[in-house]
């Protein structure tokens, strides 16, 4: 199956799978109140924090899902032995991945809610978006090299 895929397409597909998994990990968390050691916690107050994944109240989730699907498209076509080929998929993967990197960085900096904490999912998602952009760029280069 992977024989039909270029190295760049494989890299982008791996990044897409990691990105999809990362969207279900916690991206944002709020810590509960902390009490000094030795002081009993009052009844009814929880010291546990809460965390949420990306699928709550953001268009970033839809955008990242679209990016992952486009990056996975060549692998899905190879998996189904489809003869269909889209000439623009590598460029689209690169563009969507690069914009995803910008959006995740913006989300983690200027758009991040005050008082909240960045969780592991956000960093894995950022890394996966970088991998998708790199894979898309490499696939574009491989396509150009193949045409020469």
């Amino acid at each position, binding site marked *: 199956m992977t024989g039909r895929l270029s190295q760049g397409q494989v890299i982008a597909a791996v990044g897409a799978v990691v990105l999809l998994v990362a969207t279900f990990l916690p991206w944002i968390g709020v810590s509960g109140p902390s009490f000094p050691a030795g002081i009993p916690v009052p009844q009814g107050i929880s010291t546990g924090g809460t965390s949420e994944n990306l699928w709550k*109240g*953001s*268009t*970033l989730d*839809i*955008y990242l899902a*679209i990016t992952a699907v486009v990056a996975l498209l060549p692998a899905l076509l190879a998996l189904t032995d489809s003869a269909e080929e889209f*000439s*623009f998929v590598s*460029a*689209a993967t690169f*563009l*969507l991945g690069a*914009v995803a990197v*910008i*959006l995740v960085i*913006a*989300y983690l900096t*200027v*758009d991040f*809610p005050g008082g909240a904490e960045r969780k592991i999912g956000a960093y894995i998602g950022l890394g996966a978006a970088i991998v998708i952009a790199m894979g898309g760029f490499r696939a574009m280069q491989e396509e150009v090299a193949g045409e020469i």
Partner: protein
Amino acid sequence: MDANRLSQGQMVAASAAIALFIVSFLPWFGVGGAAVTVGGTTIGGAVNRNMWEFENPLDVYLLIVMLVALVPAATTLFGGAAEFPLAPIATTLLAGVGTLLIIYQLFDHGSGASIKIGVILGLIATVGITIGGYLSMQEDAGGERY
């Protein structure tokens, strides 16, 4: 500056991008409910938010879409030598996805928020950028279909 240097697609995309920038300062969403007046002081009430004030990555995304549509057109218009071979596909793709994201926002804009005129006009402008990008792709390919 010579507007004849721009292709029809670039012209459509750039005009729509300028329209989107202007529309982004109109109210996109209304937040809040009825105001209560106590002792002459009004508390609460609905507040309109434009694209930049609504807490959502959509503002950053649509800014990127505007830049992708405007920068190649502006460079061509002012006689720059820089070439942007990916510009038509980038404009079409990113504006197309932007259209989907705005449509998604129409249906899922959070509880207590309401749709205002800006988001509808923003959707129309984003569709305009997509059409302009697609025309540019066709012009670049000399009629070849993608």
